[in-house]
């Protein structure tokens, strides 16, 4: 194994069923249903997936959903805004914990 992340492995995603066919099938059925057009458009879902890909920092997902968002008609401006939404939640989640730090700080201080 030369590297933990190999771009070629993205194409093998479907093969995760090899070691557990039943659960693998359930996962892909679920995955396929989630991305169908519904109350949200496939375009909106693609932007959400792109944003989440960044928060989970999955290079496979970023690769796949950058291309997918482009094929759903999104432009760079929309895609970057989606990533900023994810980044804002991620940094906000870190910062909101500072209330705990502040509380503790105040408890320990004169």
């Amino acid at each position: 194994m030369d590297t933990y992340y190999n771009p070629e492995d993205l194409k093998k995603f479907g093969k995760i069923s090899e070691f557990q066919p039943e659960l693998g099938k359930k996962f892909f059925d679920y995955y396929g249903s989630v991305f169908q057009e519904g109350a949200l458009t496939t375009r909106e879902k693609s932007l959400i997936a792109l944003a989440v890909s960044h928060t989970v920092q999955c290079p496979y997902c970023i690769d796949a959903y950058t291309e997918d968002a482009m094929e759903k008609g999104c432009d760079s401006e929309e895609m970057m805004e989606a990533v900023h939404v994810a980044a804002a939640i991620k940094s906000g989640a870190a910062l909101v914990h500072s209330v705990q730090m502040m509380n503790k700080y105040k408890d320990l201080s004169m």
Partner: protein
Amino acid sequence: MKSLLKQGHSLAESDRQIQLLEQAGLTRFSDKMDTVGLFPLTTNSLDIFQINVGKMCNQVCEHCHVDAGPDRKEIMTRGTMQICLDAIDKTNCHTVDLTGGAPEMNPDFRWFVEQLSAKGKKVIVRCNLTIIVANKKYHDLPEFFKKHNIEIASSLPYFNSAKTDAQRGEGVFEKSIRALKMLNAVGYGMEGTGLILNLVYNPSGAFLPPDQDSLQNQFKRKLRQGFKIEFNNLFAITNLPISRYLSYLVASKNYDKYMEKLVNAFNPMAAASVMCRNTISVGWNGFLYDCDFNQMLELKVAAKGQHLNDFDLEALQSRHVILNEHCYGCTAGAGSSCGGTVA
């Protein structure tokens, strides 16, 4: 920017393009068609004449399959146009689709349109929009189109300048918007006028087009809100891996992935409805092809009478379409034709 031909680029040569396509190591397109019972690919009827009246253009688009530009001098003569008219008379075709280059730059363009219009055929002009504002002598094109009830099909890859100009050249978006307003002003794309203005979307890069209906809704909303522009339909067209787009794919190292994507997206429903089954493509010099892409690859029809001078309707209607690996572009996903998706 110069055309590939002017640059002396190896991919200006059709033989080199075909060689590259055949070396890609893909499942042969003909074999793929065979698996779904579509090989040999037969024609259904001859409904549409698509006539390329010349390779001269005022734009040099990154993805152009014609390798058109101001430096291309190939142009259809009035004599060849007359032979086209004679050939059309021998058929029951209902549509004549004029393309280029910028077809309006052909000095006999207006004469040709008048003759076609007099025949009562539906005439489509593939207008690149910017030609309308390029020179004073073209400013009256909207009125001319209206007079002859011409259907307009115009490329606009996106509703902003960044994506449009990246594909079609600096300043093209702004000029296209001006031209669209001029077309709207005479009634094109406006409800109740019957004057049809369709837009054509090609991806600005190495990816497939979005769903045509969703994209059309998005374009309608954005062009109406941002620019007060109206149009009828949007055609989402896949870029075929030939000529300048092929050159882009190779230079950007996207070629293998793009071809793999096209092959994986093969759709038998789209394959059954490809445009070459009811269209004949005429080159600027009168030679006949199955489509505009085969024309650029210099793959003439496999039938008796490969030139308009020897036009043989019966032979053309019973011909087998010449296939090669670029054809995967027309069968990917929802399919692609000059009228948008097919499946």
